[in-house]
């Protein structure tokens, strides 16, 4: 092989001019230079970070201003106090991710606990039979919601507003408007109170109910993010027509979401017996709104298709932390309500702000 020497190449005129020109590759115009812009982008990519940050900040603030707040016991107590609303929020999140809403979650829960109690405590049915029956009832309630929404094509808000009242009337019918006393449950069906048991860790009292709540969130997170079903749920919520065109059987997906939500409510009903200590038809009347509050504060978009289910867990915890912290700081109850209201508005405002990023 011989290397032939080539004469040095002379630059052409146009090349000289070219050097002075812009060498950047084609790109979108970027306006995101400031801190706020970068924060907006970061939050758009990680929507769960908003509630996490709020939770951290509120923990810090209440740790400073409220006595006893930062004890292990108090923190485990907050977990306990939010556990039931947390489970309802998990069910609610599923529905809200599909751009729906379920006003009947708390009514399904109380109905299931009343029926389980009636069967196990008063009619002597063994708990291991009574509880699955209540789960079937919960799933059936969810199925009714799903059926009305997907087959009769009623809007979710109206459907569940209706079934809320229907289930509530059934609660009164089955319970005779009477609580089942804790002592009677202990005597006849102590297993109903299973989730009231707790594991002492240091000063903390972690109830089985708290663990169950976290477990439900983890399982749902996995289902939503790691399975085809979960991606379909998000797709249906984001744009139902597009999902349909992409070959997703949207009605089947929606129906499955409502049934699953009903089942979770029934499980929450079991857990609520352990938490409350008795079975009360009067408890959790505002549970549906409290669950929506947790979901919204958790950064899950009411317009569907966006937000992580873990957000609802943090949302529920934020409400619990605020209530506990304000109480320990000696603030009157009405200001706790006041604070919760502003939290909701703030959460939705942040959600709207983050949504603008893609515009």
């Amino acid at each position: 092989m011989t290397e032939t020497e080539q004469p040095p190449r002379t630059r052409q005129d146009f090349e000289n001019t070219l050097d002075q020109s812009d060498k950047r590759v084609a790109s979108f115009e970027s306006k995101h230079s400031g801190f706020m812009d970068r924060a907006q982008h970061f939050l758009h990519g990680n929507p769960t970070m908003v509630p996490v940050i709020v939770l951290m900040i509120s923990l810090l603030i209440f740790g400073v201003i409220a006595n006893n707040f930062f004890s292990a016991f108090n923190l485990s107590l907050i977990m306990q106090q939010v556990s039931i609303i947390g489970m309802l929020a998990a069910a609610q999140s599923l529905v809200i991710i599909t751009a729906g809403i379920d006003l009947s979650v708390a009514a399904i829960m109380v109905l299931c606990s009343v029926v389980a109690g009636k069967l196990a405590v008063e009619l002597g049915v063994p708990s291991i039979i009574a509880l699955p029956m209540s789960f079937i009832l919960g799933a059936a309630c969810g199925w009714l919601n799903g059926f009305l929404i997907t087959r009769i094509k009623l809007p979710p808000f109206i459907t569940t507003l209706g079934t809320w009242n229907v289930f509530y009337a059934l609660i009164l019918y089955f319970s005779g408007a009477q609580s089942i006393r804790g002592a009677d449950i202990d005597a006849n069906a102590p297993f109903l109170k299973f989730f009231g048991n707790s594991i002492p860790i240091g000063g903390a009292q972690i109830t089985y109910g708290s663990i169950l709540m976290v477990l439900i969130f983890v399982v749902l997170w996995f289902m939503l993010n790691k399975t085809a079903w979960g991606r379909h749920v998000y797709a249906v919520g984001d744009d139902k027509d597009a999902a349909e065109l992409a070959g997703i059987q949207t009605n089947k997906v929606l129906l499955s979401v409502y049934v699953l939500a009903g089942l979770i409510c029934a499980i929450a009903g079991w857990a609520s017996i352990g938490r409350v200590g008795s079975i009360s038809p009067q408890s959790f009347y505002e549970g549906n709104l409290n669950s929506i509050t947790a979901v919204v504060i958790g950064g899950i978009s009411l317009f569907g298709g966006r937000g992580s289910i873990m957000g609802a867990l943090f949302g529920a915890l934020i409400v619990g932390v605020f209530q506990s912290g304000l109480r320990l700081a000696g603030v009157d109850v009405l200001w706790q309500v006041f604070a919760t209201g502003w939290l909701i508005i703030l959460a939705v405002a942040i959600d709207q702000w983050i949504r603008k990023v893609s515009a």
Partner: protein
Amino acid sequence: MRFNKKFALLAGVAVLSMGGAASAQDAVGACLITKTDTNPFFAKMKEGAVAAAEENGIELSTYAGKIDGDVETQVAAIETCMASGAKGILITPSDSRALAPAIEQARNAGALVIALDTPFEPADTADATFATDNFKAGELIGQWAAATLGDAAADAKIAFLDLNPSQVSVDYLRDQGFMQGFGIDIKEPTRIGDEDDARIVGHDVTDGNEDGGRTAMENLLQQNPEINVVYTINEPAAAGAYEALKAMGKDSQATIVSIDGGCPGVQNVKDGVIGATSMQFPLLMASEGIKAIKAFADSGEKPANSEGLDFFNTGVTLVTDKPVDGIESITSEEALTQCWG
């Protein structure tokens, strides 16, 4: 279309049920409007009203709010009631002040309005009030708690589990009555929370149910784990408070007192969950109320108040299995024959 047929069927049912209400025109009409359907207290009230109405030949319609504090539903009920031409209204107001305009309209239209259980503010908003002396009910359990503690009452740690943030009359009457009975300076008697007695650990609200009672008790125990006296607005709240105390291993340190006289509550007195409860008599309130409407329809005569009170007192009895000297009481065993629900 199938869907339309269903709709027509629904509409038909609605028309039929309205027709049923309209046929009540001939007899003397009366309405019973309760706070909720959920509380067995109101179920007992309804039972008393239905029985008395049958006895006196009165056509009774009943209505209820969805939740304690549900004013809109009650206003609508008053309006429906007047539209049906009722002679009298028995009502347990969900809000002792907010319903005044609706009540005034009903009275102007010629109806006799009797408040049951919860007085209006001012009490003469209605023609009469048939109620438990709630202040007295609180006073009885306050006296009992102080006597039971004896010398320890001087440095008691007291938790107050009230109803809700709106401080309705039944709420402050019971709360302040307890304080009076226990020997606490109540200052403004219509205001919960203006007291400065060091024995008060704090007040929290329960919505009058088990869930609220438990959460409120947990919160107050966080403020002071030494609580040894627990006042509760009603027995479901007391049951919730007991669960919270039990979960923290403090059920033997605190004495719970309550008000109502519901059967589960009396049973809880028997089981030692509640130390003492003041029993009231909802059935009597309603049956006396129906009789008063009958008398008014016949002769135009309006019911009179009990002496020294601005309402007709239907009585209150202390229920406890640990009686103390100087305070009249009955045992839980006796109370079980008279309890409601």
